[in-house]
């Protein structure tokens, strides 16, 4: 399955594809890693306000290397900026926004997503690992819509879209949509529903690399409609 790395979207292209689905006027929290790249790709003309759980609404781009304020950082502890109209607040108030359902959308990475929407993204459960959860459980339990961006398979080719998660859960039944290098996939009552295949990627190719139930898009296979 090493060809899975040669076809499909790059990390930046995955972020770019996800960015197309960020609605104008929404309040968004972006997780660490590929999700962080989404902000740079939101189409012109949309105004999106970014929240970082360490106490800033209205997060702007990172400053040039060595610039910025070491006390103006994001949840990944990288220096960022604050846009016009930003506000600072303490941690408990920040999680009022999250837990209270005020953030419209969160884009996160994943270790595994199950076909019922279960998300595992904080621990492999390895006995010698130092457990660390951060704000992941709060985000997925509180934010209205959860998007995941992830490679379709692990580096060794194992599916990350699975029938049921083998890793410890971050929260059950929370994922709405998944952006992988191979496809855009919705989590539905019937299983993983392909919304869109990446260029040059065939449905069968994706199905072979998916462990749960994978439904083709109506366009690809009209008989499913």
């Amino acid at each position: 399955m090493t060809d899975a790395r040669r076809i499909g979207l790059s990390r930046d292209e995955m972020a770019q594809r996800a960015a197309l689905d960020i609605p104008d006027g929404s309040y968004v929290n972006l997780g660490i890693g590929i999700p962080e790249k989404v902000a740079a790709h939101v189409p012109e003309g949309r105004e999106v306000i970014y929240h970082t759980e360490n106490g800033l609404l209205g997060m702007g781009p990172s400053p040039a290397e060595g610039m910025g304020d070491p006390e103006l950082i994001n949840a990944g502890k990288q220096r960022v900026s604050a846009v016009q109209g930003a506000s600072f607040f303490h941690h408990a108030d920040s999680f009022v926004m999250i837990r209270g359902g005020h953030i419209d959308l969160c884009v996160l990475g994943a270790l595994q997503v199950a076909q019922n929407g279960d998300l595992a993204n904080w621990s492999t459960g390895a006995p010698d690992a130092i457990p660390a959860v951060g704000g992941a459980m709060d985000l997925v339990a509180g934010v209205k819509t959860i998007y995941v961006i992830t490679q379709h398979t692990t580096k060794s080719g194992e599916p990350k879209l699975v029938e049921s998660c083998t890793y410890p859960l971050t929260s059950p039944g929370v994922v709405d949509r998944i952006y992988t290098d191979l496809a855009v996939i919705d989590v539905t009552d019937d299983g993983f529903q392909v919304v869109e295949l990446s260029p040059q990627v065939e449905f069968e190719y994706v199905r072979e690399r998916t462990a749960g139930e994978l439904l083709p898009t109506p366009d690809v296979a009209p008989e499913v409609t």
Partner: protein
Amino acid sequence: MIDKRITSVEEAVADVFDGATVMIGGFGEAGSPIELIHALIDQGATNLTVVNNNTGSGEVGLAALIMAGRVSKMICSYPRTANSTVFPELYRSGRISLDLVPQGTLAERIRAGGAGIPAFFTATSVGTPLEDGKERRTFGEGDFVLEHGLTSDFALIKCKKADYHGNLVFNKTARNFAPVMATAAGITIVQTAEVVTPGELDPECIVTPGIFVDRIVTIDSPALESELVARGVSYP
């Protein structure tokens, strides 16, 4: 006369006792009261339970306190960050214990502790291993777990500017856990870059009212954790 200024960091932390629970502000280095932590290392109190979102980095500040063997238990959400090597070693060798709490639950438990709320329900951690041992209950259409308020004997926090009544304002995302920790600690000790006369801070903009603050020490040019780490400093 209300004047909460203390001359030195040594005096400010002098009464921290062995076995105390100490909340320490900061999210990574932003808001970390590094001079107060170093004073606590010098002071020598041991067997501490420390509440912080992380476990420090390099061998300064919180990481140095842990490295010195003074911390028997960490309550935190993310003990694994860049340049964080001290905690993992001690944890793997069983010399420090960890109470892992989701970040928002940690913030709310501290807020509850300061607000006189012994327990509350939240959806966070339902259906995960971190639910183990917690009471679960259904409200409306959702399931929630019972979490308990968290208080401490001391809080060490950092702010940008204080008046000597103890009113505080912060710098950007260095605010993070400090305001809730100030409410939840028996004794709240603040290091500030500047102290002004009461009335100089806009009463509409004060983040932490003086009622939550016990001691103020001025550290006009606080060290920056990342710079110390980059220079390879190991405290003491």
